[in-house]
């Protein structure tokens, strides 16, 4: 219990809108050990990004508990929370809107130093220490020193994402939420960034929450995967288990729908009908009912709970429950 760096219990975030309350995150629970990576996978609007940001309290949760390093953080006052922010950072999806266009590369990377007592020296020596610090970080993430005074808009997406990573690393965090860090990048650049993140994890013992819509990316990266659909986790399992034995119909469809870059003799995809329904006014039934090929009467009786079917493998599905019994 206490060796978890992060433990999330029944985390819930409802957004109030004119049309009704949007169930962005609905009673999500998971825990994470230090140095490990949890992949959160799902399609747009499934609440994966909101989950990531709520954990950092960039969005205030509606209810639920978040334990970081054993400490409950949802009720911490701002000053206490600020101290904790040092340990939990985020890398954003869009390297074009996540960097202030009016700051140079070095200013962007050095900005976190202003808010925390990291630099020791005073006066002139402080400037030098800051420069050393920034250059060291730039070297860590693979940015050439000549870019020290350039503006982000002069750089390509891959380099900009490296700035974002350096900024997150500046405070030497324990946990980093990676919110689709490579989705906006070209394939050859994606691999560069993924390798960098992996290297950093090994060197610094970082813990990642890796949010993505791309299952093949998390396959490489994560130790455990949580699949989200309409605000809830529908399946959670260690990565090899999930890829080998996906149990939830949604996970199965998701895996089947990925276009694989090889010539396949026959197509074995389970094509899902319809589209994600709006997360407003959800009926009290399995969230996946409207698109599920196996939906039966009992699926419409309440939301199925997330149940452990094999050690470490959790599924929220009545059909799987039936087969178990």
């Amino acid at each position, binding site marked *: 219990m206490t060796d978890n760096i992060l433990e999330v219990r029944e985390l819930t975030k409802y957004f109030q809108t004119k049309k009704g309350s949007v169930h962005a995150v609905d009673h999500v629970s998971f825990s994470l050990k230090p140095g490990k990576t949890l992949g959160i996978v799902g399609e747009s609007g499934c609440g994966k990004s909101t989950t990531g*940001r709520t954990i*950092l309290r*960039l969005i205030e949760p509606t209810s639920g508990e978040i334990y970081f390093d054993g400490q409950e953080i949802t009720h911490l006052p701002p000053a206490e929370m*600020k101290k904790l*922010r*040092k340990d939990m*950072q*985020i890398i*954003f*999806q*869009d390297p074009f*809107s*996540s*960097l*202030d*266009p*009016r700051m*140079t590369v*070095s200013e962007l990377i050095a*900005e*976190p130093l*202003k*808010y*925390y007592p990291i630099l020791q020296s005073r006066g002139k020596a402080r400037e030098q220490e800051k420069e050393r610090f920034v*250059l060291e970080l730039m*070297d860590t993430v*693979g*940015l*050439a*020193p*000549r*870019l*020290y*005074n*350039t*503006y982000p*808009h002069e750089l390509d997406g891959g380099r900009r994402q490296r700035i*974002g990573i350096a*900024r*997150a690393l*500046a*405070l030497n965090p324990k946990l980093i939420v990676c919110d689709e860090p490579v989705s906006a990048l070209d394939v050859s650049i994606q691999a*560069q960034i993924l*390798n*960098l993140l992996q*290297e950093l994890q090994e060197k610094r013992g970082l813990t990642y929450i890796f949010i993505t819509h791309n299952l093949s990316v998390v396959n490489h990266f994560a130790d455990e995967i949580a699949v989200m659909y309409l605000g809830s986790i529908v399946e959670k399992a260690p990565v090899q288990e999930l890829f080998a034995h996906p149990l939830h119909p949604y996970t199965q469809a998701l895996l089947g729908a990925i276009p694989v870059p090889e010539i396949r003799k026959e197509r074995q995809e389970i094509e899902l009908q319809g589209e994600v329904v709006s997360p407003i006014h959800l009926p009290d039934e399995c969230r996946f009912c409207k698109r599920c090929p196996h939906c039966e009467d009992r699926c419409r009786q309440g939301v199925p709970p997330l149940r452990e079917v094999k050690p470490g493998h959790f599924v929220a599905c009545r059909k799987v429950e039936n087969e178990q019994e």
Partner: protein
Amino acid sequence: MKKEKDTTISVKENRAVEIWRQYRRNKGAMVGLAILILLILVAIFADVIWDYNTDIIDMRIGNRLAPPSWEHPFGTDNYGRDMFARIGYGTRYSLLIGFASVLIGTLIGVPIGAISGYVGGKVDNVIMRIVDTFTIIPSLLMTIILVSVLGTNLFNLMIALSISTIPVMTRITRASVMVARNNDYIESARAIGAPTATILLKHVLPNCFSPILVQATLRVGSSIISAAGLSYIGLGVPLPTPEWGALLSASKSFIIKAQHMCLFPGLAIMITVMVINLVGDGLRGALDPKLKR
């Protein structure tokens, strides 16, 4: 992973030098700046160049309504006073009214708009409804009401114009803050623990600078014109102060006999407004690193 080999740090230019280098590329803005500096110098040293009593207000009836000549390049007015000297001296009032009213209006309007846009919710609602009530009244009418209540003099005119500038600046600031705060870099600043005030001052407002600056420069022009308009209907700076609007106003009875009397003050207003817009446009370009080339 291959690291990039280059190890030299590019030289960091002083921010001011950089801005100036950028600014210089815009030819129109440079011309504008030259004329604006000239106008400001004239305004500052008006007392050195002209003697207020002998050159500006002394009447020489024998020489009234003389057309432009070498001696009087802009001709003389209905009291025989040199129009060139009067327009030159008037720079002082017009520029002061234009700049001061916008400066005051901006200093008050921008913070209100920024808070309204960034905080949102109920605060935003209350602020915007108040601003709305001010906006419903046409700004010239508003100024007229204020001046009639406060009394006609230069200071009151400035205050009245400032007050009618506030809602304009509040609105534009609020709108651009609402756009800017949705960027991920705001979230990013929060994630690294930046205090709200810092985020607002360092990340949100600088990125709203362009529309605010454009609006402000436009307002300088329109304040000068409003002031001229008020003077024209006799609510501005009292005679014989050679404020440009007052000069125009005085010319109205002589528009057939002596066109130069209305031509030159009109030109002065037009050129000044244009010059300020040119400078504003240049500044906007120079301050935005994205437009750097």
